[in-house]
C-alpha cells in the first residue's frame, strides 16, 4: 500500500469550503435581526414573515412555477418527438444537420438568445410578458430534452423493436408499449432539466419580459441592484432547500434507473 499524501484531501476540502461558504453565509444571515450581511445581532424569523406577507412576491413565485411547469411539459413533448425524429432519420447528413441545429441554443450565450428572441417577438407582434417568456422557455428547453432523451434511444437495442413487431405489435403499440417505457428515465431527466433551466433562467427572461410580468430571477436581480435586503437571504434559503429537494428527487430517479441497469451487468 502506498502512503497517501494528505494534500489532495486538504485541497478538496478547501475547494468545497469555498464552494459552499457563500451559500451558507447567505442562509446564516437570513436569520439576522441586524438587517445587514455583516454582523449578526440576533436570531429572528422576521425576514421570512415579511417574505410571506409580500403578496407581490408570492405572485412572482407563482408565475415562475407556472412558467417552469408549463414550459418543461411542452418542451418535453416536442423534445421527445424530436429525439425520435432524429433517431429514425435514415439519411446521415439530415441527422447530423438536425443535431447541429439542436445544439445551437445549447451553446449560444443567454444574451444572444435573449436579444434575438426580443427581436423575434417584437417583429411577430407578440406582447412582451407571460406569452413571450413562456415561448422562450419552451424554446431553450427543447434541445436540452432532446439531449437527455437521445442517449437512451440510441442505447436501446434495435432488436427490442424487432421483437415487439415480431410479437405482433403495430406502430403505435411499439411506441407506447416498448419505446416510451424504455426511454422514460431519459424523459424524466429531460423534464427535470428543463424545469431547473426554466427556474434558474435570468438572462433570457430579462430580455423578453415586459412591464408587469416578472419571474423570481429577474426580481432578485432588481432587488440586488438596489443593495442588500435580508428578504433575499430568506428567499434564497427557501430556494436552496427547494433545489436540494429537486436534486434529491432527480438523483433518486436516476439512481433507481442505473441500479436496475447495474444489476443487469452484475449477473
Amino acid at each position, binding site marked *: 500500500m502506498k502512503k497517501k499524501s494528505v494534500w489532495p484531501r486538504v485541497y478538496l476540502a478547501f475547494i468545497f469550503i469555498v464552494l459552499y461558504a457563500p451559500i451558507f453565509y447567505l442562509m446564516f444571515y437570513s436569520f439576522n435581526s441586524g438587517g445587514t450581511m455583516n454582523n449578526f445581532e440576533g436570531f429572528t424569523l422576521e425576514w421570512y414573515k415579511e417574505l410571506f406577507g409580500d403578496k407581490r412576491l408570492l405572485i412572482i413565485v407563482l408565475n415562475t412555477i407556472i412558467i417552469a411547469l408549463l414550459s418543461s411539459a411542452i418542451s418535453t413533448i416536442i423534445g421527445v418527438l424530436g429525439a425520435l425524429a432524429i433517431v429514425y432519420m435514415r439519411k446521415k447528413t439530415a441527422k447530423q444537420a438536425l443535431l447541429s441545429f439542436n445544439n445551437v441554443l445549447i451553446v449560444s450565450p443567454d444574451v444572444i438568445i435573449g436579444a434575438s428572441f426580443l427581436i423575434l417577438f417584437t417583429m411577430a407582434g407578440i406582447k412582451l410578458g407571460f406569452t413571450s417568456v413562456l415561448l422562450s422557455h419552451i424554446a431553450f428547453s427543447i434541445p436540452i430534452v432532446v439531449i437527455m432523451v437521445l442517449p437512451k434511444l440510441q442505447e436501446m*437495442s434495435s*432488436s*427490442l423493436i*424487432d*421483437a*415487439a*413487431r*415480431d*410479437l*405482433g*405489435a*403495430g406502430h403505435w*403499440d411499439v411506441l407506447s*408499449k*416498448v419505446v416510451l*417505457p*424504455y426511454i*422514460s428515465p431519459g424523459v424524466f431527466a429531460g423534464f427535470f432539466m428543463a424545469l431547473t433551466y426554466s427556474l434558474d433562467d435570468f438572462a433570457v427572461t430579462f430580455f423578453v419580459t415586459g412591464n408587469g410580468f416578472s419571474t423570481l430571477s429577474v426580481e432578485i436581480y432588481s432587488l440586488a441592484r438596489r443593495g442588500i435586503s435580508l428578504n433575499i437571504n430568506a428567499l434564497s434559503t427557501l430556494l436552496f432547500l427547494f433545489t436540494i429537494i429537486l436534486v434529491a428527487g432527480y438523483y433518486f430517479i436516476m439512481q433507481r434507473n442505473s441500479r*436496475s*441497469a447495474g*444489476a*443487469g451487468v452484475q*449477473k
Partner: protein
Amino acid sequence: MTKEVIIRFDHVTKRYDNDAVVLDHVSFEIERGKFYTLLGPSGCGKTTILRLIAGFTEASEGDIYFNGKRMNNVPANKRQVNTVFQDYALFPHLNVYENVAFGLRIKKVKNSEIDRRVKEALRFVNLSGYEKREITEMSGGQRQRVAIARAIVNEPEVILLDEPLSALDLKLRTEMQYELRDLQKRLGITFIFVTHDQEEALAMSDEIFVLNQGKIQQSGTPTDIYDEPINRFVADFIGESNIVPGKMIRDFEVEFAGKVFECVDQGLNQNESVDIVIRPEDLEITSWNEGKIQVKVDSQLFRGVHYEMICYDEAQNEWLVHSTKKATVGEKIGLNFEPEAIHVMRLGETEEEFDKRLESYQEAGYEQ
C-alpha cells in the same frame, strides 16, 4: 413424416444500398416440423435469411412463400413466425410474466387465456414460479428460456433462433443444445436456427444449410455434410480436415502425396485435378513401414480425449492427426486410412452436380 413445405425462397437476393450483395439468388425449402440450421461464418448472410423470414428486412429480388402464399410485403407483425434474438431482446421494463404475455396482449387475448398460456409456456421451459421476477434478476440461461417462452406462447408455425446460445458459457450451451432439441421435438414446430458454431449445428439439426458469401454451399443432414463435404470451404468449416491437392487417375483410383490409392469415388474424368479431404480422426498411426503415407511428427498437443499432432510428409503436405496413441515429436511414423476415408472433391462443383454424382454411385450399388 409427410413432406409439407412451409417456407420457400425462390431466387432471393438482398443487397444494401448498392453495396455488396448479402444474399445471392438463394433458393431453398423448409419443411414443417423439422429442425433446420443455417451455418456459416459471420457475414455469410445467415442472419439476413432469418430477418427476411421474420419480415425485419425486405428482399431486393426474388420471392418468399409462406404456406404457398407470397409474403414479401407482409409486415413483421402480421407474420406467423416468432424470433428468439441473439441478445434475447427481453423488454427490461416488464417482468418475466409480462414479457411472455406481450404478444398475447397485443392480440387482445382474454386475461384468463393469457394466464393459462403464459404459465404453460413457462412450464415448458422449466421456469414455473419465476413469473414475478424482473428480467435483470435472471441469469443468462434463464433469460434465454424466457425468450423462448415468449416465442412459443404465440403458437407460431416457425420459430427463428438467431445465435441464441452464443452469449452462454460452454457448459450451459451444451445443456441448452439438448433442451432446444428436446423442445422442438415436443412442440413439433419448425425451428430455424442460425449459428456459426459447427458443433452446435451438427448436434442439433435435422438439416443444415452451410452458407458462405451469400450462397448456400451445401445442404443436407449433419452426417451428409460431415462425411461428404462438397468443397474446400465446407470441408474446412465443418470439423477439421486435411485438404491436399490430388489427381483422379481413373474410377476408384486417386493420386496424392506422391502415391496412388484405392478410393470409392467414380464418374470423374481421367486425370482430373481434385481436392482430397481426409478427416484427422480417420488417420491411424502405425510404424513407418506399414503406413500408407510416411510422415514426420512436427508437434503434438494433448487434447484430453486424444492427441492432436501436426505431421509433414516428404512433399511438405501438412497432416493433422487425432489419435489416442501417443507419438514423439521428431519421430518418423506411418499413417494408415481406409479407402472410404478419402473424400474426393471436384474443383468448382455445384451442389446440384454433386448430388447427381452421388446418385450415380448409389445406382452403381455403393451405399454410403
